[in-house]
């Protein structure tokens, strides 16, 4: 078969590329350039003191392997993700169950509950540092009422309290996100299926696990993916509450990279770290996208 390029084909070809060209160019500048630059610089020896652009091989990567601070940051990041995510998920699911049926003022409740999601994360971090302030914050005051004694809990300084402090802020801000998505998913569950199961005599638990859960799973998976990736780059809340402290106890990958790159100016080392993060995340994302089928 001969496929000759006819006039409208060429014109159309032009049209479709005219449409995407500006976007692709910008994405290449801001998306691809950093990748290439990071790759190059990560094999050099640039620091604050020394603008050494000679080839250093994998020196920086070897240094990362030995850097306990980096592994600590990675560990904290993973820990925040695997703890906060299930809490947000279950709390969100519980709240969605609460609002799935008719309730007076339902729309108003939902509209109000959603507000934390749209607050800037840095502002919610700031808000929680107000709330958790050892002396002027209301949280300690409430705890004192319940305990009946004067406690001055140093939330952002005490090593055992600093993690709960971050979880509080994180869970407060993002549980409504889960709630909203799961509520939408639950509303879309086929009522006829639920009624049929009830008529067949299935228990509440059976209905939930055999019908409800499978049918909301696609949405749940997307929600987990989006939140998981967000948590993996957690920065603002930690920055506002602890700046990674006390010491490096709450340092995440993002705050660690920031400190290395913009406070200690370890340019090449930071490049290697950034590239490593991108590589790790690429695998996670590719794997997750395959499973979740965001595009459907």
């Amino acid at each position, binding site marked *: *078969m001969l496929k000759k390029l*006819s006039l*409208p084909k060429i014109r159309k070809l032009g049209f479709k590329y005219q449409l995407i060209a500006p976007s692709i160019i910008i994405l290449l500048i801001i998306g691809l350039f950093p990748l290439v630059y990071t790759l190059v610089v990560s094999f050099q020896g640039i620091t604050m003191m020394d603008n050494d652009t000679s080839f250093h091989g994998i020196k920086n990567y070897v240094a990362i392997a030995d850097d306990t601070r980096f592994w600590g940051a990675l560990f904290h990041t993973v820990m925040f993700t695997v703890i906060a995510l299930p809490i947000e998920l279950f709390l969100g699911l519980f709240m969605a169950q609460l609002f799935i049926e008719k309730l007076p003022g339902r729309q108003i409740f939902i509209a109000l509950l959603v507000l934390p999601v749209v607050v800037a994360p840095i502002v919610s971090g700031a808000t929680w540092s107000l709330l958790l302030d050892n002396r002027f914050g209301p949280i300690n005051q409430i705890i004192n009422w319940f305990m009946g004694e004067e406690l001055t809990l140093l939330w952002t300084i005490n090593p055992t309290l600093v993690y709960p402090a971050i979880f509080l802020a994180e869970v407060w801000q993002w549980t409504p996100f889960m709630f909203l998505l799961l509520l939408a998913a639950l509303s879309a569950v086929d009522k006829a299926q639920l009624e049929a199961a009830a008529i067949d005599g299935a228990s509440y638990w059976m209905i939930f696990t055999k019908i409800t859960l499978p049918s909301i799973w696609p949405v749940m998976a997307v929600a987990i993916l989006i939140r998981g990736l967000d948590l993996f780059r957690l920065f603002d809340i930690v920055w506002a509450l602890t700046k990674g402290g006390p010491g490096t106890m709450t340092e995440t990958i993002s705050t660690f990279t920031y400190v290395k790159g913009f406070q200690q100016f370890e340019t090449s080392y930071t490049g290697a770290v950034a590239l490593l993060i991108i590589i790790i995340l690429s695998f996670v994302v590719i794997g997750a996208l395959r499973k979740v089928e965001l595009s459907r």
Partner: protein
Amino acid sequence: MADLRISGLHKYYGSMHAVKGIDLEIPSGEFTVLVGQSGCGKSTLLRTIAGLEEIDQGTVQISGQTVNDLAPKDRDIAMVFQNYALYPYMKIFDNIAFGLRARKVEKTEINKKVDHVSKMLSIDHLLDRYPRQLSGGQLQRVAIGRAIVREARIYLFDEPLSNLDAQLRDEMRGEIKRLHKELGKTMIYVTHDQIEAMTMADRIVLIRDGKIEQQGTPSDLYDRPKTKYVAGFLGSPSMNFITARVVTQGLGYGLILENTAAQLKMPENVSQRIGEYLGSNILIGIRPEHFSLNNESKPEDSGTTIEVSIDLVQPTGARTYVSFKIGQVTAVAELNPRDIRQNESNLTLNVDVNRCVLINKDTEFSI
């Protein structure tokens, strides 16, 4: 002169070969129906004519001019879409005027034309409304109005009635036919509904699997189908096909229906054609209406009757459909309701052997 000439047309979607070499001429002013099962390529063919699909091979000519490389807007065609394709954010007036505005028609002229067309289709009272405020039938009229207001050379209809309920469909069929008479334009109409094809077409083009199976007037295709597929596609309920062995009978030939004792005597003109099949099996196609009740045995009926036992009787008012087994095959006969008495289990039916279709079992071409 032909208004539209298509030659050697091929269309691929990736590895799928949707249109496999179509040659077609459509004379000026004719109402042509492209009919076939869904996925047969008829809509693709129509959209290729419109310029909405690129041509991979072959040519499309409108009034002698090759239009392969012309954009849809330069082909002087108008089209009615299956889902109406009305713009929900525009009032009905603007929907109808949309194409005229594209062509920079003067404002007073637009008003005049929209007014004329909307009166013709009795939608003039709806011009100020939005599409969502209209019923399906009204939307359909607007969609047609939007096309005919353009005064194009060729009008294309892509399954325009398939979203309407049965009653509206009947009404709109008549309406479109009337428009064709009034306007006298070339119209090409795609449908999967063989009733629409039969009732509306000057000419039917039956498409199967990307190729033209047969084309001609409705009665050409109905009475003289070239293949088993055509015979089975047209008519509702569809034709009964029964395997039969060709035997000698008297001076001519007869057919013994498979798994039965029934033997049908073929008339002389048919006999000539089946002689070469003597002793082998062919298919006989009998339309439901070609059965009739044998009330009293007349000598001239001998050799063209069969005895059947009734499986199911389905009255529809005007006609009654009776299902029965001929050998292993379930067949349907269309009878006069008065002919069927209650609790009757056996019938003797006449077969109109002059109008039966005989088909070569291997090639599926008619004999």
